[in-house]
């Protein structure tokens, strides 16, 4: 089971009242390479991955939910005080008509979150996909940083981008662990 902790993993500050940023950030909320997709992918794969790396998938999957919450916090703060007129100007008119001010699992182009998060049941295929997922999430953060004019949002995005680097590193190590010859297996 899971326990909630009443704090964010990293402090989120939004410096500029620019609801347009919310439209871009939502990509990491309900986009194909976003935090929700990552969390669901790893937590789903953990059942059929070799025992050695089960814990890693479990823990990275759990951390992704903390990242999802950080993104939602940014989106919420950027839209909660916007008038419908301001949302319209920010390109969020359609979002407002369908969802009000609710955050919603869709991408920056308004496409609904795709539950078809892949899991192949082959440890190497799954881990290589996970490495790719981390690199894709890292690039999305780069594209958002490039398009953002808010240094405080970029500070949080920089943290999240670095987390993708560390996750990618750990998944690469997981592949190495699974490649190890059984006879040379380290003693526990």
């Amino acid at each position, binding site marked *: 089971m899971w326990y909630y902790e009443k704090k964010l993993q990293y402090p989120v500050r939004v410096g500029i009242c620019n609801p347009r940023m919310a439209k871009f950030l939502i990509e990491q909320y309900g986009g194909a390479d976003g935090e929700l997709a990552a969390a669901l992918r790893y937590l789903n794969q953990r059942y059929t991955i070799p025992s050695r790396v089960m814990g890693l998938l479990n823990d990275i999957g759990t951390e992704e939910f903390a990242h999802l919450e950080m993104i939602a916090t940014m989106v919420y703060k950027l839209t909660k005080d916007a008038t419908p007129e301001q949302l319209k100007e920010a390109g969020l008119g359609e979002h407002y008509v369908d969802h009000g001010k609710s955050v919603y699992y869709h991408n920056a182009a308004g496409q609904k979150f795709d539950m078809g998060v892949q899991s192949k049941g082959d440890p190497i295929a799954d881990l290589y996909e996970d490495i790719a997922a981390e690199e894709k999430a890292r690039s999305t953060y780069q594209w958002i940083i490039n398009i953002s004019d808010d240094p405080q949002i970029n500070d949080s995005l920089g*943290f999240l981008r*670095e987390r993708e*680097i560390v996750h990618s*590193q750990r998944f690469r190590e997981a592949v190495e662990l699974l490649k190890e010859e059984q006879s040379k297996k380290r003693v526990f």
Partner: protein
Amino acid sequence: MSTSRKWYIPYVSPYDPCPPLGPISYETPVQLYLGFQPQGMEQFSPFEALAHGTLWPGLFTPYTNPYLSKRGELNTDG
């Protein structure tokens, strides 16, 4: 120490509709080079670690908007 940003120059046609943007960058962060993390790597303090998004300076690869940086220094394969 490896660099974490590389550049290349795309082909420019005289018939391109827009002026060329110049060299294009892409990122090659540290996890591409590190291999299995060795034990005992130098660490940040807890506050520094939080600020950097990792406990280890050896895993930290900062990022800045490449469109704002100068495009002069090229490490290109053209």
